[in-house]
């Protein structure tokens, strides 16, 4: 304790508040060569503390005196500390700005309060977009609903009872829950999630399928038909459990919208009772509806788009294609579809199964057609016709959606090209907000490569390209690049699928035919 040097002084007429002095003491004590430092006003308590440190204040020190007490290893250290003290006592005010404002909101509820304050309540109507993991989606969406905000829930893996609770609460409050598992919505032209750039129009969509809605909007765009709204409702809304809660709300709202002339309802195969109820509701509302409910024996999306064209009294449309049909015919037997859009995959499977029978898939039309695809996108289907949805939950765990990250599918594309069984490859490409900024940049070279590898057996590549003229990726540019790589490109997914099926050598049903009713729901 007694090594080195001690320094004790009192300074009269110097005052600083105790907190400042505590900080200064801390600063001095941290200096090299200083073993103890206490700078404090000479209050009885502080004098006691100093005594405890073995640095007694001079007799007569009063509460208005500043006491400086230092213990240093040497005089040089002491002098450095005194210099530091001088500068610390002169600069006490901060030059920093006082206030950084409110911190960013951490909950949907507080963000909504913040947004309402910012807009002054005059313009804009709040819409919440939830894409947190499924086990947290309910909480954020519930914030939105109870605040009277409409909400898009992109998240999947939300428990169905939470979906039902959310939608019941929403109905009570006059707001719409779009989702969960809602990939696409367009409200007043604003594309949410994966959505295409559409011109305003007088047709609105109610969509239980994200890529289905995108595809339909792309076809309508090609036909010169604009879209007013596309209200996503989530892939499960038209199941028996959820009972079309959001579909019904959306339908009623669009029926009351003076700027919507025609509604298209898009869904993967819905529960039959729910579909019937919804049809009755549409009749009762007197709203014109084109139904695009996929499934065996149901019109495909392209047919539905044609019905819209017809309903609006427009001339029939020839859907655009790019690239020329290869003159060579494949000699290998198998058709392989590699999809990023679940509904596009579904639609292609229905079309293929009608001619080819069994189509193996990770999202099979029939349970017995199930294909075991592992998390790394690997499977072995032998020589069977196969269609795989790379956007399926299992393949997107911990990985971006294939519409954003094409790696997995492009790897598989080359593997298929090397498979001597494979004669025809069917791919989809989906453009729009949220999707990869230039999918053809990597897919076109991969297609060239694949065609080269499978050239000896006449491998053919058919692409279904979903996009609108206004999409940021450039529909024509993407189509041209893919066609230049040797693919035949169709805007219509159904036409692409039929084209691919036609290319399959000996395209006759091999196992059981699919004209009978499917057993169980498709998904």
């Amino acid at each position, binding site marked *: 304790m007694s090594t080195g040097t001690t320094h004790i002084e009192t300074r009269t007429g110097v005052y600083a508040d105790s907190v400042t002095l505590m900080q200064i003491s801390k600063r001095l004590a941290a200096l090299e060569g200083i073993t103890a430092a206490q700078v404090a006003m000479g209050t009885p308590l502080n004098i006691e503390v100093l005594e405890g440190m073995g640095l007694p204040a001079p007799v007569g020190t009063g509460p208005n005196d500043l006491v400086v007490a230092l213990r240093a290893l040497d005089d040089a250290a002491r002098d450095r500390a005194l210099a530091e003290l001088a500068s610390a006592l002169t600069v006490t005010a901060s030059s920093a700005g006082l206030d950084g404002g409110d911190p960013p909101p951490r909950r949907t509820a507080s963000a909504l309060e913040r947004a309402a304050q910012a807009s002054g309540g005059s313009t804009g109507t709040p819409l919440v977009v939830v894409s947190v993991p499924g086990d947290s989606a309910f909480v954020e969406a519930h914030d939105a609903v109870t605040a009277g905000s409409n909400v898009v829930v992109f998240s999947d893996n939300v428990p169905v009872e939470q979906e039902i609770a959310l939608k019941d609460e929403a109905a009570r409050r006059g707001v719409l829950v779009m989702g969960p598992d809602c990939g696409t919505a367009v409200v007043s032209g604003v594309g949410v999630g994966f959505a295409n*750039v559409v011109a305003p129009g007088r047709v609105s969509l109610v969509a239980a399928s994200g890529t289905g809605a995108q595809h339909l909007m792309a076809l309508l765009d090609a036909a010169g038909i604009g879209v007013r709204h596309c209200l996503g409702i989530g892939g499960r809304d038209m199941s028996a459990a959820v009972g079309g809660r959001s579909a019904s709300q959306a339908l009623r709202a669009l029926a009351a919208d003076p700027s919507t002339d025609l509604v298209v309802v898009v869904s993967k195969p819905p529960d039959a009772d729910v579909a019937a109820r919804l049809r009755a509701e549409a009749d009762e509302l007197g709203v014109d509806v084109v139904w695009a409910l996929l499934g065996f024996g149901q019109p495909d999306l392209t047919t539905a788009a044609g019905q819209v064209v017809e309903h609006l009294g427009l001339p029939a449309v020839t859907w655009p294609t790019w690239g020329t049909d290869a003159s060579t015919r494949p000699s290998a037997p198998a058709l392989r579809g590699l999809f990023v859009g679940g509904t596009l995959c579904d639609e292609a499977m229905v079309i293929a199964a009608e001619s080819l029978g069994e189509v193996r898939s990770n999202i099979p039309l029939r349970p017995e057609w199930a294909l075991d695809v592992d998390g790394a996108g690997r499977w072995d289907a032998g020589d069977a016709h196969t269609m795989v949805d790379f956007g399926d939950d299992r393949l997107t765990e911990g990985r971006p959606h294939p519409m954003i990250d094409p790696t997995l599918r492009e790897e598989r594309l080359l593997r298929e090209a090397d498979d001597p069984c494979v004669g025809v490859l069917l791919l989809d490409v989906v453009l729009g907000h949220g999707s990869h900024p230039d999918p053809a940049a990597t897919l076109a070279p991969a297609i060239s490569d694949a065609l080269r590898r499978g050239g000896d057996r006449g491998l053919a590549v058919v692409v279904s390209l979903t996009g609108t003229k206004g999409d940021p990726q450039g529909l024509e540019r993407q189509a041209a690049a893919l066609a230049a790589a040797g693919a035949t490109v169709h805007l219509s997914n159904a036409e692409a699928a039929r084209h691919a099926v036609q290319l399959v050598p000996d395209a006759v049903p091999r196992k059981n035919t699919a004209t009978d009713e499917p057993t169980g729901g498709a998904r």
Partner: protein
Amino acid sequence: MAGRWTGAASDALLPVLTGPARPATVVGAGPVAVYLRAEPSRAGDDAALVALVTRQAVRVPCAVVVADAEPLPFTLAPGRRLQVGDGSITWDAGVLTVVRWWPAATVTGTPGRTDLRRDPTAPRDGLPRRLAALRLAVGPHVLPEGVPTALERAAEATDRRDAATAAAALRPVLGLGSGLTPSADDAVAGLLLAARSWSGAGLSATVAELGARLAAGLAARTTAVSAGLLRHAAEGRGAPEVVRAVEHLTGRSPADEAQVLRELVSLGHSSGRDTAAGILTYLYRQLTVTNDPTSHLDPTDPTRPDHPPLVRESA
């Protein structure tokens, strides 16, 4: 290195922005709005006005809202040459791509809508009160000399479906006043929108014809920006604040009145109040042509709508 931006465009610009690229010139520039005049794509077409604006700027019906920028992220001086079309606006230092279309605010002049002039159940009961509220919101306001009389004559002629007389009344005052949109032009726009809203489909053809007649020679009388906005007004399109106020006043779309009127009159430097003057002129006329719509009002009430309007000619 060219800058790349994205934006959201009014659907009124669909033909201009999605058509083949054509030359354009900057005709007005500020920190939150740049106005372009796109050359006619072929002889006989009109030149088109395109406004590049931030979210904070007034969203005129020919606006492209530049994404996520305040103020505008680029500088375009008047006289600068650009290309407009194929979904984008392009110049030597940048490209602005349209990635969203929004519906321009439009008054209810669509077929099937009731013509309130001919509808005995039209909400005239509320009209005097609403007009009084707007007049109070505008406060003392003076239009350039000759404008109020011209507006009165035009309103009367329009109601007779006499677009020629209305145009003749308005033509001499176009361009009077200062600014990018002169006072007289704003007032005329207000009158056109009010007539379309009040009449439903009833007068839309007349108003459109009036717009077409005014358009002839418009470039020589007023600024390019004002001329472009007047064309939109004749088609029923305006800034959302203006359209909301007009629709509220005519009872088409009930709203928070104080807020709607406040938003209208605080537009621009004097644009909002000038526009309100045109709206008031047309709608006050609708009171006087109906049978005693104000009999229930206290004759000493200074806000009585049949008191002389605050809008007067300057001394």
